[in-house]
């Protein structure tokens, strides 16, 4: 593997790594960065933060594909993967935005609409004083495997 074929991919994990499984998105982004580095793939950009916000729309606009990664406490089996469409209804939370709303902002401000996906990884515990749970880590591995295959199967990599 030498590089991304013509397109640019942004992988963006978000959450608080100080809150146990809430950091799954960050760990996902870090692992993907390492994978890209070990395999000499230069077209993937990996980033992370506590939460999504308006300035991320600008980073999104510079990429063809964006993959967000986040922990979830929702009732899913292990991981859930879906394509995101621009969302006009903004989340109520003050200081963060949903992937749909950041994508909508990207479209409005930069006239850019990268294909955007969200992979949610099931977490179980959210305390300040603990490590990522074993089950959550297993789910993280599944998520990594899924996205790596996705990138390879789609022939995004030479």
């Amino acid at each position, binding site marked *: 593997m030498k590089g991304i074929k013509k397109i640019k991919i942004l992988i963006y994990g978000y*959450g*608080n*790594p*100080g*809150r146990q499984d*809430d950091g799954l998105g*960050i760990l996902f982004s870090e692992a993907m960065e390492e994978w890209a580095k070990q395999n000499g793939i230069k077209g993937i950009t990996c980033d*992370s*933060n*506590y*939460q999504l*916000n*308006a*300035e991320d*729309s*600008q980073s999104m606009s510079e990429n063809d594909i964006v993959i967000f990664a*986040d922990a*979830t*406490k*929702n009732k899913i089996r292990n991981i859930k993967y879906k394509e995101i469409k621009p969302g*006009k*209804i*903004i*989340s*109520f*939370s*003050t*200081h*963060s*935005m*949903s992937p749909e*709303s950041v994508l*909508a*902002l990207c479209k*409005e*401000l930069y006239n850019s609409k990268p294909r955007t996906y969200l992979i*949610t990884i099931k977490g179980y515990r*959210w305390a*300040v*004083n603990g490590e990522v749970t074993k089950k959550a880590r297993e789910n993280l591995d599944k998520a990594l495997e899924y996205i790596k295959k996705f990138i390879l199967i789609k022939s995004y990599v030479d």
Partner: protein
Amino acid sequence: MAKKITIEPVTRVEGHGKVTINLDDQGNVSQTRLHIVEFRGFERFVQGRPYWEAPVLVQRLCGICPVSHHLASAKAMDVIVGAGTGNGLTPVGEKMRRLMHYGQMFQSHSLHFFHLASPDLLFGYDSDPAKRNVIGVAMTNKDLAVQAVFMRKFGQEIIAATAGKKIHGTGAVPGGINKNLTKEERDKFLKGKDPLNADKMIEWAQASIEFFKDYYKKNKEFIDNFSQFPSNHLSLVRKDGALDLYHGVLRAVDANGKKIFDKVDTQDYLKYIREEVKSWSYMKFPYIKQLGPEKGWYRVGPLARLNTADFIPTALAQKEFETYKAVTKGKPNYMCMHTHWARLIELLHSAEMIKKLLNDPDLQKENLVKTGKRQKEGVGIIEAPRGTLFHHYAVDANDRITMANLIVSTTNNNEPMNRAVNYIAKAMMTKKPQITEGMMNAVEVGIRAYDPCLSCATHAYGEMPLEITLRNAKGKVIDIKRK
């Protein structure tokens, strides 16, 4: 029929809050309460941990204002390692911390005004909620929204350059910092390609104040009268009375501007500040000890800071400060919506400070840390974007933390936010048979002016509905509205 109205949770504020408004049989507002579930476990969590871990550990507390907690904790640990009580660091140590802090202020104030407040101003608080948000701003005022994005980005990059990374930064350590600013980093912020440079940020900060002043001219009655009530005000000020967001002495003034106390060393805060517990709220109610809980409650944050400070030590912000102070003829300003104006003046001040610091060659010096005689106890106080933030720790002979007490900005503003809810509810909900979207959002606008951060770093994607529950006098739910 008497009714109980519950708005749960408060939207567009962090964490989970619930507003209850009780109406009596005549439809008058009889009682209002803002309930906030405050996370208090952290103070126990840090007990037993080595003191030097605290500046990094405290960032687990909150994903919204981690830099403020990082710096307040580091300031307390400066005292522990014998590096003085705010004036003992090396020049590069103190100035790197200040740069980090003003970067945080700049990005936080930008976020609040452009993303949270401006939709209410541009579209009106009773407008369609589908439009009244940052995407609505982008669709109707693209230039303003683009500015907001780049201002946030600039502040975030200052933080990353000074704290070392965006998440769980390590820049501040007990007694100083762990990195200086390279000339390459400095030049990126000073001479970066438009718009990501300090001059452009100053220009845009000035433009944002003009935007507000123009709005104020056209909407003076609303801005002056929405949720205005007198209070005491508290903040740090520099020893000469100047606005200083990183360090200083504690000053409190009453509603007429008379000093309640002044030049109080941060290490002595417990002699002046107490906290009251109320049975119906998890969040404490701080008050000024000498006035007692009934009369001693106070505001913190931008409005309070511009009431306590005598002047602003940067030229452009000082000029705006003079215009702002002229509105109240130099007296304390307690008009809630003027908080946004004060916040924008601080935004400009932060941009000016960032430029001033970037031009200071001390930032490239190598003596990063200073220590002295080890102490058992330390207090670190900082003016966070939302107001005064207190961190207080005790450490044993084995370097383990034995006690931690935190009073966060939002806790300091607990009583004022409750009063704001009461004021708005009485003004808008008395004898009203139905709760409209405009009424609901008016309550939120009042709370939002304080930019509360409810310490809910564990986000819950898609789980922030707004719910209104109506109850009759017997407690039976007669209506629920959700959005």
